[in-house]
């Protein structure tokens, strides 16, 4: 699985690319694979103020809903308007055309709490060991 160098990663499986004060945010290859076929994306409005670690939207597969958390604080300056009609873009190109929002960061210190590619790869590996315990979206008892 690919975790590009140069990106920062959150424990909730978002990635961040920072250029000047603008942070582009998406979900990682690991997150999209765990979710499976993504069929719906809920986006915030441009101008909305996000606080680090708060949910700002959601991605949904046929099976489950997953909140997306703000990895940094700031104001939304752009959202990826192609996603509502083509949510599968997140599966196909999570680090490219599947980006979700751009945030003007209010505190550059927020980046310090995030992982680099190597740390995130290790983090994900550890998640794999626990894998299966959560059984997301399993409601029925069959």
């Amino acid at each position, binding site marked *: 699985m690919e975790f590009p160098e140069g990106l920062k990663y959150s424990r909730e499986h978002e990635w961040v690319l920072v250029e000047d004060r603008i942070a582009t945010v998406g979900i990682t290859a690991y997150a999209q694979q765990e979710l*499976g*076929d993504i*069929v*719906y994306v*809920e986006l915030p409005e441009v101008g909305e103020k996000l606080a680090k670690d708060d949910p700002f939207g*959601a991605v*949904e*597969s*046929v*099976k489950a*809903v997953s909140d997306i958390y703000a990895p940094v604080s700031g104001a939304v300056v752009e959202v990826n308007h192609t996603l*509502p009609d083509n949510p599968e873009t997140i599966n196909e190109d999570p680090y490219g055309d599947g980006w979700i929002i751009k945030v003007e960061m209010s505190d550059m210190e927020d980046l310090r709490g995030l992982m680099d590619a190597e740390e995130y790869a290790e983090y994900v590996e550890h998640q794999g060991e626990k*894998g*299966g*315990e*959560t*059984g*997301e979206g*399993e*409601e*029925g*008892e*069959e």
Partner: protein
Amino acid sequence: MVGFAGWEMPVQYRGVIEEHLAVRRRAGLFDVSHMGEIEVRGPDGLEVCQKITANDLARLKIFQAQYTLLLNEEGGIVDDVVVYRLGEDHLLFCVNAANTEKDFQWIKENLTGRVEAQDTSASYVQLALQGPLAAKILQRLTPVRLEDMRPFHFAWDEVSAIRCLIARTGYTGEDGFELYCAPDRGAGLWNGVLEAGAESGLEPAGLGARDTLRLERALPLYGNELSDATTPLEAGLEWVVKFSKGPFLGREVLLRQRQEGVKRKLVGLEMVEPGIARSHYPILKQGRPIGEVTSGTKSPTLGRPIALGYVLADEAVIGNAVEVEIRGRRVGARVVSLPFYQRQEMSRA
């Protein structure tokens, strides 16, 4: 893989949507060995079971299967099950995995006379071969004349040289078969069927697709649409309840409910604004709570969000404009007729 009622279950192989569409267009193979099996034997078995189930077991001949409900005294649904009549005095209940222990206790508590019950879940592997090409694929592996086997009938015979109970039943809304065999032959059966189906585009399918397939066909899932506190009349399963068959648990409660009307009813919902309704989301009418979603997804076949949920009986009207509260947002939806999907019946020669 996810943990599920003590089983390690595949949620998906190549992706839920791909597997779902394979079942609708060609065929899919599911490992559903988690399903429980309870066998009831003895000359009084049929009569005893007649008293704790909703459907009429007297209509069930040997080599036939029946969808029925285990009921409690309040008319609530202990479980929804398929019962196979294996012999004159021998019934096999295929039950929901998470309910196996509860069902077994319930059946045992109600046994009287010359009858005994046994939890034989560990004695069976169960595979479900489902889809329009299921019969064609299975016929390559078995001497049974499948064109003569009607829905809800079964036979004992060989598949891939493995002795199986071969039943024309399923949980997907497609034609298909469920195969029961001894656990040590399970892997052989799985591989044999997959191999025979390869040229027909058969794909392994997981729990994820099983859930979206049953939801499109509006087949209820215990734990979502059904519970001990839900009655068949509320759940749209009145057709299963045969009041005329004589006494059974919950009959009086259900008769009264039929006369007085139910308070809430299961309905189908389609979203008219963007959003996907999910289990436990509130259903509202002009801001007033009227019910709750029990299952929801984006239908892979129809390409639009669908959901099942309970609403107040007065609101259970086709076309009714309602709202679903999705993460704090009210999203427009309407009540639609069920099922969302029904296969085209092929004419049989």
